[in-house]
C-alpha cells in the first residue's frame, strides 16, 4: 500500500507519530457507530424516526419519546456500546501482550471462570422454580452478575499466582490460563449434565450472552471500569509497542516490564470481568474485533482505539439485528459470532488472494 500509515505531528519541541490510517478507520467507525446507535434507539414496538431520536438525545422531543428513548432503549444500547468497547480493548491488549492472535481473554480462562460462577448460581438456585436450591430469593437476582464477576476475578488471581515464577513469562501465562479454563469449562459441563433440563436451558441462554433487558445497573459498572482502565491502557501503549520487539528489547528500551505486564493484565481482566458480569460471555468479540481492526488499519499490532470502536459497532449491530430484523429472539452472543466470523473470514480470504495475485 502506498498510503502513508503514519505521519509525524510536530508542535514546538514535541512531536509524535499519528497513525493516519488507524485514525481514519476509527473516525469512520465512530460515524458508523453513531448511525447504528441512532437506528438502534429508533426501532422497536413503537418506532421513532431517527431525526426525532437525535433531537431527543440533544434534549428536545416530547415527553413520550423522551421516556421511550432515554428510559427504555438507551440503557440497553449504552450497555451494548460499552461492552463492545471494553471487550475490543481487552482483546487488543492481551493479543498484543502475548504476541499471539489467539490470546484473547477467553483463552486465558477469565471468561470460563465467570461462566462457571454464573452457571453454578443458576443450577444451584434452581432458577426455573421448585425452590429447593441452595441459593434463593434476593441473592439469586443479585447473584448472577456478582457470581460471574467473582468467578472471573478469582480465576484471574489464580492465573497470576500460578504463572508467577521469578517473573511473568507470557507463554507460561497463556498455557496456565488454558489449563485453568479447561478445568473450569469441565466444571460447567458437569453442572450442566447433572442439572435439570430447565436449569440447563436457562444456563445455556446465559452462556450465549444476552443483551436483553439490560439497564443502567448493568451499564454503570462497565462504564466506570472503562473510565478508569482506558487511560491506564493508553498509558501502556508505549510499553506495548516496545514489548512487541521481545522482552529483552523492551527492557533495553527502558520499559519496566513486570509493571507494564501487570498493568495490561489488570486492564484486560477488569474489562472482561465487568463485561461478562453485565451481559454474559460474548466469547467471540474479544477475539475477533482486534483482528478485524488490525486488518482494517494495517500495522504491527491490534490498534487500541480502533478495536474499541469496532467492538462497539459489532455489539450494537448485533443488538439491532436481534431486535429489529430477526423473526425470533436470539441471544446477542450468537449474533455477534454470526456477523463477526464471516467478516473475519472475508478479510482473510481477501488478504490471501491479494498475497497470491
Amino acid at each position: 500500500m502506498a498510503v502513508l500509515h503514519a505521519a509525524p505531528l510536530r508542535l514546538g519541541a514535541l512531536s509524535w507519530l499519528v497513525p493516519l490510517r488507524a485514525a481514519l478507520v476509527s473516525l469512520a467507525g465512530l460515524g458508523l457507530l453513531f448511525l447504528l446507535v441512532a437506528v438502534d434507539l429508533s426501532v422497536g414496538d413503537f418506532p421513532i424516526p431517527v431525526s426525532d431520536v437525535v433531537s431527543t438525545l440533544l434534549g428536545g422531543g416530547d415527553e413520550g419519546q423522551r421516556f421511550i428513548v432515554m428510559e427504555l432503549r438507551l440503557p440497553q444500547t449504552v450497555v451494548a456500546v460499552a461492552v463492545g468497547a471494553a471487550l475490543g480493548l481487552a482483546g487488543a491488549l492481551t493479543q498484543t501482550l502475548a504476541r499471539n492472535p489467539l490470546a484473547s481473554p477467553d483463552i486465558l480462562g477469565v471468561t470460563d471462570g465467570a461462566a462457571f460462577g454464573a452457571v453454578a448460581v443458576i443450577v444451584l438456585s434452581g432458577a426455573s422454580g421448585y425452590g429447593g436450591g441452595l441459593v434463593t430469593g434476593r441473592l439469586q437476582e443479585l447473584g448472577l452478575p456478582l457470581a460471574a464477576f467473582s468467578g472471573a476475578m478469582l480465576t484471574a488471581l489464580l492465573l497470576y499466582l500460578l504463572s508467577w515464577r521469578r517473573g511473568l513469562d507470557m507463554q507460561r501465562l497463556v498455557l496456565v490460563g488454558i489449563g485453568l479454563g479447561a478445568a473450569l469449562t469441565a466444571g460447567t459441563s458437569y453442572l450442566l449434565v447433572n442439572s435439570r433440563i430447565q436449569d440447563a436451558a436457562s444456563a445455556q441462554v446465559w452462556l450465549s450472552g444476552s443483551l436483553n433487558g439490560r439497564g443502567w445497573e448493568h451499564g454503570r459498572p462497565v462504564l466506570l471500569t472503562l473510565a478508569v482502565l482506558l487511560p491506564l491502557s493508553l498509558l501502556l501503549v508505549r510499553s506495548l509497542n516496545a514489548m512487541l520487539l521481545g522482552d529483552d528489547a523492551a527492557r533495553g528500551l527502558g520499559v519496566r516490564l513486570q509493571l507494564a505486564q501487570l498493568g495490561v493484565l489488570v486492564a484486560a481482566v477488569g474489562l472482561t470481568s465487568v463485561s461478562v458480569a453485565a451481559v454474559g460471555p460474548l466469547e467471540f468479540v474479544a477475539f475477533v474485533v482486534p483482528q478485524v481492526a488490525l486488518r482494517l488499519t494495517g500495522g504491527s499490532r491490534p490498534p487500541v482505539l480502533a478495536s474499541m470502536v469496532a467492538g462497539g459497532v459489532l455489539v450494537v449491530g448485533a443488538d439491532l439485528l436481534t431486535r429489529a430484523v430477526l423473526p425470533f429472539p436470539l441471544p446477542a452472543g450468537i449474533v455477534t459470532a454470526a456477523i463477526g466470523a464471516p467478516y473475519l473470514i472475508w478479510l482473510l480470504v481477501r488478504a490471501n488472494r491479494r498475497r497470491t495475485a
Partner: protein
Amino acid sequence: MTSSIAAEPAAPASPGVRRGSARVLGLLVLALVAAALLSLALGSRALPIGTVIDVLFHDDGSEAATIVHALRIPRTVLAIAVGIALGVAGALMQGHTRNPLADPGLLGVEAGASCAVVIAIYSLGIHDLAGYAWFAMAGAGVAAVAVFAIGSTRAGPDPVSLVLAGAAVSALLLAITQAIVVRDSETLDAYRFWVVGSASGRSLSVFWQVLPFLLVGLLFAAMSTPGLNLLQLGDDVAASLGLTPWRQKALGIAAVMLLAGAATAACGPVGFVGLVVPHLARRLGGVDYRWLVPYAGLLGGLLVVATDIVGRLVVRPAELQVGIVMALVGGPAFVLLVRRTRMLKL
C-alpha cells in the same frame, strides 16, 4: 570419546531438552498395554486381572466374559484409538501452525461435528450414537475443508490465517449450534450428553466405522512428519533444503482433519488431549518431530484410557464422562507441569 566429552557441558545448559529414544517409546507401549488391561479389569464391578486375561481370548459365556467383551473391550479400544488420534493430530497441528496454543479443534473439526450432530438431532430426529458418528464425521470434514480453503494461499496453508480461519469458522458453527440449542430444549437434552465426550455406551461397530479414517490419517501423518523439522525453520529455508512446503502442509493438515474428525465422531469432542499431549511429549522426547509425533500418539492413548478409568472409579456406580475428567484433572495437572518446568519454545 572426545565428542562425548565435548557434548557433556552442553547438556546442563538446557536441562529441559531431551532426545527421543526407542527405549522410552517401548516403555510407553508397555504402559499403554498395562493401562488397557486395567481398563478391562476396573469399573463398577472390578474383575481380577487373571480372570480378565482368561476370558479375553476365549469368551466362555460367564458373567465376567460378558462384562469384558460387551462393555469394556469396546470402550477401551475406542479410548486408545481416540487418544492416539488426538495426540498425533495435536502434535501435527502445533507443528504445522507453529503455534503452541493450536489444538486440533482449531481446524473447526469439533465445532463442525457438534453442529452436524445438533442438526441431526433437531431436524432429522436421530438419536443413536452410530448415526451421530456419521454426521459428526461429515460435519468435521466440511468444516475442516472450509478452514483449509480460507486459511490457504496458493503457496499452501499459512499458519496465522489457518489458525484465525479455524477460530472464525468454529465460532460461526458454534453460533448455529447454540441458536438451535437455546430454542429447543429436547435437542439440548440429547446434545449436552454428547458434547462432553465419552467412551462409554459405544459398541465396537463405532470403532469399525471410524477405523478407515484413522488409518488413512495415521498414514498421512507418517508421511508428513519427517518434513516437519525442516518446516520449523520457515517455508523458504525448507524449500531451499529440497522440501515442497505446500505439499507437506497439505498432507499434515489432511491428517489432522481425518484423525480429529474420526476421534470426535467416535467419542464426541474430547478437548484438551490434543493441546496438552504435545507439550508432555516435548518434555519427554525433545523437539524432534520424528520422535515427538509417536510419543504424542502413545501419550494420548495412555491419557484417554487413564482418564476413562478414573471417570469410572470416582463416582461409582455412576460415572463421569471422559471429557469432563480429562479437563478437571488434566487442567490443574497441566498447570502444575507448566509451573514446574521451563516450557520448550517451538
